[in-house]
């Protein structure tokens, strides 16, 4: 598999993982709504975590679109800066307590992808 293709596939896998996390967190937040606990600290934190994960998904969708555009043009592309920004988003999520474990898993994947992105930069 080529670097570009491999990178796109890893983007897809990461977004899928993030989406599963978003679904799980959203389900828990709906429980907060059902019990009228939206203003409780754990539910407020949950809501912030969901926003953070959504932001991560959007960032990685953007990176995927940029890398796919370059692949469709047969060009190399600079996704390193965008990948580093996405990493920052995830690090701030890591600071949220319950999410630390998940964030560590995703950061591991992103570390690998940043290394890969460096190879496909012009």
């Amino acid at each position: 598999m080529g670097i570009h293709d491999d990178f796109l596939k890893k983007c897809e896998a990461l977004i899928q993982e993030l989406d599963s996390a978003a679904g799980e967190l959203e389900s828990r937040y709906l429980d907060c709504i059902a019990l009228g606990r939206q203003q409780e600290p754990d539910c407020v934190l949950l809501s912030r975590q969901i926003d953070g994960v959504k932001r991560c998904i959007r960032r990685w969708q953007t990176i995927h679109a940029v890398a796919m555009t370059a692949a469709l043009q047969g060009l190399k592309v600079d996704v390193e800066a965008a990948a580093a920004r996405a990493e920052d988003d995830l690090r701030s999520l890591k600071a949220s307590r319950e999410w630390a474990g998940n964030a560590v898993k995703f950061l591991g994947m992103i570390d690998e992808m940043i290394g890969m992105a460096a190879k496909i930069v012009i």
Partner: protein
Amino acid sequence: MRGLDRKRGGGMAFFLMLVVSLVGCAKVDSKPFLDFQQAVSAVGTGMEDASSTLMAKQREEMIAACAAARPADVKREFYLVFGPEPYGAKVESPNYHAALMRMRAEFAEVNDALERYAEALLRLSEFEGMSDADQQTVSTELNGTLNKLSGRLFDAPGGGKVAIVSTLAVPAFNAYLQSRQRVDLKSAIRGNQANVAVYADMAVGIIRVHLLQDIKTRYREEFRKIFSRFALADSEARRLEAERIISLDESTLQALALHEALERTFRALPAAHADLALALDGRDVSLVGILEFWNRVSALRKRYEELKDAH
């Protein structure tokens, strides 16, 4: 002597009949090529429709995101810096809407190359039945088209660049136009097989990461809004919210089915393309790949109709 002439005449007539029947059999059956060309065109339209819906929703979301962002982020994500190419323009950090717009334009271009390739294959399948003059015209025209298509490159797995019509396949196509030996046409089609598979794989990636993901994200956002109202509503207002929940579930399930049909159609594309080489062997060959591709396109059209009827 007359008897001998009659015998010779009868032999000649039999020989001519044999030649005519052989030539008749030798003509390529264009039907699989026509099916392929029409299915390729339909799947291209399906992708275009799906992505234009996504773009319209994205634009609204992007306006909201821009309005809520810090000024420094707005500059970073939306301020266009022109150059260094005369028509080049890019932002410091791409926003999703702009990235989607560019990706969609590039995909449409490669998709257009595939459609023109499918049309060229259809013309090639009709080539043997044409008059010499028509063959000359078509030959010149196809030569130009195929050469042009081989210049529209994209990335290949394993590194390097490929085009829907590979540069290696172009001489094989030209050889067929000269020699009319089907082995050349077969070899040209097979030479493009891997590239068609790469294209289909890219399409599936776009569907999964952008179109499908958008359905899921929007569903969760919309459900939360309705559910929050539902939790606080009295029994009369609950009925209205319940209707909204059910409508949202229905439309989301329909959208999932539509996009699944679109993905399956793209997944069926490489096998259908591979069947075109088999189609050159004659009418008795079973072209399961083309049939499957055609069935997928029919299912896709049905999903679109259902969705149109629902809204």
